[in-house]
């Protein structure tokens, strides 16, 4: 109908397809900062990106990235998980405990058990959040404490390692293909591609996104929002478990501290990722760029200025604030704000 077409005018803002250079810079801000900082650190210390440096950076990034993707799954349905780091640590602690008492032949079954333990945690989180109705933010905080206690028990409250672990334990975390590409990175790559296809191109992924974006609209079209949330918790926990196992394999230890250390990078990376390309929407490419950025900062700072921890946190905080701040400021012109559904 000509009339309808003429009468209805578009009032929206075209922020999806950046039309000006300025908009392109804002959309890809994260990537540009990452490249910029990498350049800066290289100039300050060309050794920082020696082949050892790069594989080290990429391995750490991969592990943290896997956990970040797990958190992202849960964030996509609108649930903020404060226990994802602890879940990773718990899964690693289970594996470590089993392998301390079993022969190395038991490695593969032990991994399955450890991952199953992680998924159980995810389902427990889902139960508390979806069934009982405790907001995810609060419920997962409680689970985090629970897990801390469990990890403490499994590690005898020490930095736990065992001579019984043997070479198989180290394999995934420290091994490389042809001595170049770390296994961690490969696993991360596979998981990335799988998550991307899942979220963008499958029905279930679309439903998971809809559940978080507008739960009442999702319910109205018959999307099973409960099932979607349970699924997202399960997948998230599974990914956390994988990350935890790889991390303990790389560092050859398990501890309560590991769980604590893994939480913040995952959170920061997901939130930063939501400012990349499709602002306001958690997305896989954003997570990848986010995790690269944070590890460039960490390793770059260590490699150039030394291991002053406060400098690293300072830079991390500044980048975080700037990225989110820019998005929040230009929000008035139409870019949607990042949703933190508590």
């Amino acid at each position: 109908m000509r009339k309808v077409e003429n009468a209805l005018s578009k009032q929206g803002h075209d922020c999806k397809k950046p039309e000006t250079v300025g908009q392109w810079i804002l959309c890809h801000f994260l990537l540009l900062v990452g490249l910029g900082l990498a350049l800066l650190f290289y100039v300050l210390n060309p050794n920082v990106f020696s082949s050892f440096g790069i594989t080290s950076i990429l391995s750490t990034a991969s592990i943290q990235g896997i956990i970040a993707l797990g958190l992202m799954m849960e964030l996509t349905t609108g649930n903020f998980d404060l226990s994802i780091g602890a879940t990773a640590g718990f899964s690693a602690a289970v594996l470590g405990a089993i392998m301390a008492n079993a022969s190395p032949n038991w490695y593969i079954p032990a991994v399955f058990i450890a991952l199953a333990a992680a998924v159980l945690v995810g389902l427990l989180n889902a139960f508390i959040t979806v069934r009982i109705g405790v907001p995810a933010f609060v419920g997962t905080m409680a689970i985090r404490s629970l897990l801390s206690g469990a990890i403490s028990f499994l590690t005898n409250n020490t930095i736990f390692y065992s001579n019984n672990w043997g070479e198989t334990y180290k394999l995934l975390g420290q091994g490389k293909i042809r001595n170049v590409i770390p296994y961690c990175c490969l696993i991360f790559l596979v998981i990335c591609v799988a998550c991307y296809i899942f979220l963008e191109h499958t029905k279930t992924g679309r439903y998971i996104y809809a559940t978080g974006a507008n739960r009442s609209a999702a319910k109205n079209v018959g999307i099973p929002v409960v099932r979607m949330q349970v699924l997202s918790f399960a997948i998230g926990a599974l990914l956390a478990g994988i990350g935890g196992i790889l991390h303990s394999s790389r560092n050859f230890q398990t501890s309560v501290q590991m769980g604590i250390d893994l939480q913040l990078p995952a959170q920061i990376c997901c939130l930063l990722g939501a400012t990349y390309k499709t602002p306001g929407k958690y997305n896989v490419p954003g997570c990848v760029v986010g995790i690269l950025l944070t590890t460039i900062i960490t390793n770059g700072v260590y490699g150039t200025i030394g291991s002053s921890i406060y400098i690293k946190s300072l830079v991390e905080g500044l980048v975080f604030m700037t990225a989110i701040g820019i998005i929040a400021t230009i929000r008035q012109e139409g870019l949607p704000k990042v949703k933190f559904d508590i």
Partner: protein
Amino acid sequence: MKQAVLEVKGLTKYFGDVAANKDISLSLDKHEILAIVGENGAGKSTFCKMLTGIYHPDKGSIAVEGEEVRFQTPADSISRGISMVYQERNLVGMLTGAQNICLGHEPCRSGLIDGKGLNSLAEQIKHDLGLSVDLNTPVEQMGAGEQQLIEIMRALRTNPKILILDEPTASLGQGEIEPFLQFIQRIKSEREIAIIFISHKFEEVYEIADKIAVFTDGQNVLFAPSNELTQEMCIDAMLRQDKIKPLIISQTPTKDKQPLLEVEEIHYGGKVHNISVKAYPGEVVGFYGLVGAGRTECMQCLFGLRYSKNIHYIFNGKEITKPKPRQMIQEGMILTPEKRMEGLFRGLSLTDNICNLFLDELLSNRFLKIIDRKKSNAFAEQVLSDNSVKYRNVSQPIISLSGGNMQKIIIGRSVALKGIKLMIIDEPTTGMDIGAKYQVYQKLRTLTQEKNLCIMMVSSELDELFAVCDRLYVFANGDCVDHFERDEFDKKRIVETAVRGRKL
């Protein structure tokens, strides 16, 4: 004999003791548009929620194409051929129009969403309807009218037999309404569909409806083909029986030459609204209008709760340009909010709720700013007895009181403020029983007579305004369109003014 697509008999729904819908009976055929009109709270949306399976009727029956149906969930009603487009948008913002249209039923190919298939499906629907909306941009970037069309396309995707549209033109701009109505008429004639159209705008209703049902107080008081009804008859049906006897207004207030409040126009929401309102001390001024008429927004702008560009009005002889609530209270103006719960501190006690406005005066130690508990409790007790509120203990939680008593507290504490000259109250008696309502009305009249207060009262119940007010302003579409003195009070004229949106 042609079977009606929808046949409703004696449909009744109770919420506690209140009948939200009582004995609703109507029928609808293919290629027909039924318009449901009625005031706010008349039961229109409860009725629709029963048709879509959100509520279960207590009595009566619904029959679709001759077959009686009982819906357990919304999914049941969708599968039985009833689709509804709600007043509030139900879209996923960052997905495109095409993706929203196919949400929940995406075509798949080997496990993955068939993007091309999805787009062509949506294009097909768009083509069938003869529209030309862009389906490839995220819906959050579209205007309200286009978003509405996307939702309608989504509703029509399942080829429903009955389409329900709830106030579809509420979010459309002036130029968008006419094409939209023509579009609805086209769907009606081209498809095997019956349409239910909920609206309070009579012009639209008469333009497109084949049948009209008027809902009043939960009952279907009028149901007939539109060519058998005149607008007069509809408006008559919408008015309720006279249930509230007006209070005896003993004296017409002597109008001081100087108005207490004078405002010409208010700029908010991107538009300039013509208000032209004056208010004098010692009178109750009413503000009537249909839902969405803009009265609450106007009051919020005056008090400083809502941003208004370049607002300026005169209050108590002073020119006000950048009102802020704290400042306005000191000037002598106070506002009680439309939603009762926005005026109270849920988790706190009676004392806290009353005294939070007076903490400066209830300090025992000025320097350390420590609150004197004893003084606070005594003050609270005074306010509570002044307003005849029934309570056990000043420390009991506020939510343990009835709605009526909570309202009395809100009014009572506002009035206890020193130097209050103007009180704006927004829908003061929602959810209160008739006895409690009367107490509020009496209190308001007492305040104007004894304390020479000016009260500006926003209400959607004309009876209430007739009972209490000296004068009445009528709002429509954000503007003030007419003014009635007490001797000019005429229910039909006032409702018609509000409905037509302009002076008669």
